């Protein structure tokens, strides 16, 4: 049953692929600004994020929360939610991936985290200290959700700030353009090299800092 078997397995493969392929569709949108924190000696110590959620998710997140004034939430009232957020984010490695001169760097648990609620949207602020401060020639920081449940966009204005960086450091931001054009272009490359073909990566925001 050579041909038939082949056809059958092709059918089976086709079916499983067709039915199992893309889980990816964003339900949460985050507009992010990030600050890279530098120590006096010029080494990078961590990242400070401010992530603003879309209004639909914000409404979901504050559902049922007690507040003194209706429709307004203070930082204190949002404290437990911020706590839950950073705890849950750990599972996703805070959607933040750093490489110093090509070497992966790890982060400690977030510090100085809080939420604020303004114009019906929530913004989560938190600092991720690097486990080991580094002083690379090139630092690459990527912010994205590999499963693309969350769509990260860096803010239009001042998306990245270098805080206390040595003079001469150059920052470059590569955004995932919103449309499918980037996805398509990247896809051709990923088809070619097979490696680093990672779906969510196509939606990565890539911050590159070159220091002399």
């Amino acid at each position: 049953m050579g041909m038939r078997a082949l056809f059958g397995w092709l059918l089976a493969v086709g079916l499983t692929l067709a039915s199992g392929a893309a889980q990816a569709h964003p339900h949460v949108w985050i507009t992010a600004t990030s600050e890279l924190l530098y120590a006096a000696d010029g080494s990078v110590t961590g990242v400070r994020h401010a992530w603003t959620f879309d209004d639909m998710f914000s409404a979901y997140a504050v559902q049922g929360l007690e507040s003194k004034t209706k429709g307004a939430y203070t930082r204190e009232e949002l404290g437990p939610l911020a706590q839950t957020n950073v705890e849950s984010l750990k599972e996703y490695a805070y959607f933040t991936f750093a490489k110093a001169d090509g070497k992966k760097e790890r982060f400690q648990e977030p510090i100085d985290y809080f939420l604020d609620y303004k114009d019906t949207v929530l913004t989560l602020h938190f600092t991720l200290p690097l486990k080991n401060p580094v002083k690379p020639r090139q630092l690459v920081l990527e912010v994205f959700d590999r499963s693309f449940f969350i769509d990260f966009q860096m803010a239009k204005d001042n998306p990245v700030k270098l805080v206390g960086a040595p003079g001469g450091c150059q920052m470059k931001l590569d955004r995932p353009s919103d449309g499918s054009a980037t996805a398509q272009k990247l896809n051709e490359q990923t088809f070619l090299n097979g490696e680093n073909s990672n779906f969510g990566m196509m939606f990565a925001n890539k911050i590159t800092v070159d220091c002399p």
Partner: protein
Amino acid sequence: MKQHLSPPARGLIACAAVVLVAIVADAALHDLLAQNPFGAPRPTQAAEPEASGIVGWLLAKQSEFYRQMSSTIRAAKSDGSAVWTLLFISFAYGIFHAAGPGHGKAVIASYLVANRETARRGIALSFASALMQSLVAILIVGISAWVLNATAKTMCRAEGAVEIASYALIAAFGLRLVWVKGGAFIRALQTTQPVPAIAGVPHVHHHHEIHDHHDHDHHHHDHHGHDHAHAHHHHGHDHVLDEHCGHSHGPTPSELAGPGGWRRGFAAILTVGIRPCSGAILVLVFALAQGLFWAGVAATFLMGLGTAITVAAIAVVAVSAKDIAARFSAGRDGGGALFMRGIEFGAAGVVLLFGVGLLFGYIAAERTTCF
């Protein structure tokens, strides 16, 4: 198939088939794993099928519609006509959303293939499960957020519990299918040796295969379907899930609506429909926060309708593909029947693997909005 296979040889073939199913399913699982948000990045990954231009476009469209929902619900507070826009957007979102396939579609498609269901039943199942999905979302949000004013954290826990239950259901459903289909497959293996084509051979298994054979030869199912139902009684199979050929001629509407008709599909509907879509939950909570819960409910139903249309289309494709395979395999020898039983068994295996994979977090399903 060669004639007169010795039992060990048969055993080998059976094993090989199981291994093949496992390999195919495993490849599918690895594909899914690519989206797994957990754990360290996996750089060595085969090219993703979904990253094509079409899916890219689907994603873009879907995001577009979804993002318009919140502003439209806001607008509906002051302008009633915005509700119509909302309904249209929800419907469109449902269509596009379902086009990026999730496990629900996989389970329905596999179930239809495993059970030799008709396209018509596939469509009915798609609509019923989408309706149930909408109802579950509305119930979760209606009870926890509206009635109890629970927090997102609590809702999330409820969602999580429902999610685990649904995965367990898929696994159980798959196990049941594998059990039944595995039996049919093994019997097909045992009967692939040529036997005289005598109708009414007391041996039920032979009966089974011969008729199947006939069926494919003639490219129609009518006659065979009823005969088969008889053979089944001899087998003593469970008729709830094991919907063999009884309906392969296409059920009349009365058959579908009959108690047996729905009961058979109910397991599939329940399995797929119990897990609500995160998108629907978000929209409902958002609508509730705007004081327009009913608009959220309407949007959820329209989303479900859109989803149903896409899932039904996928179901029809799955059923047609299987029919084509049946024709290809029809005729020449008992291997054709064996082959079809093999596909059914494989499809049953896929359902089981999906269930187990989802349950143990091997497959990242659409995440619930917990964080």
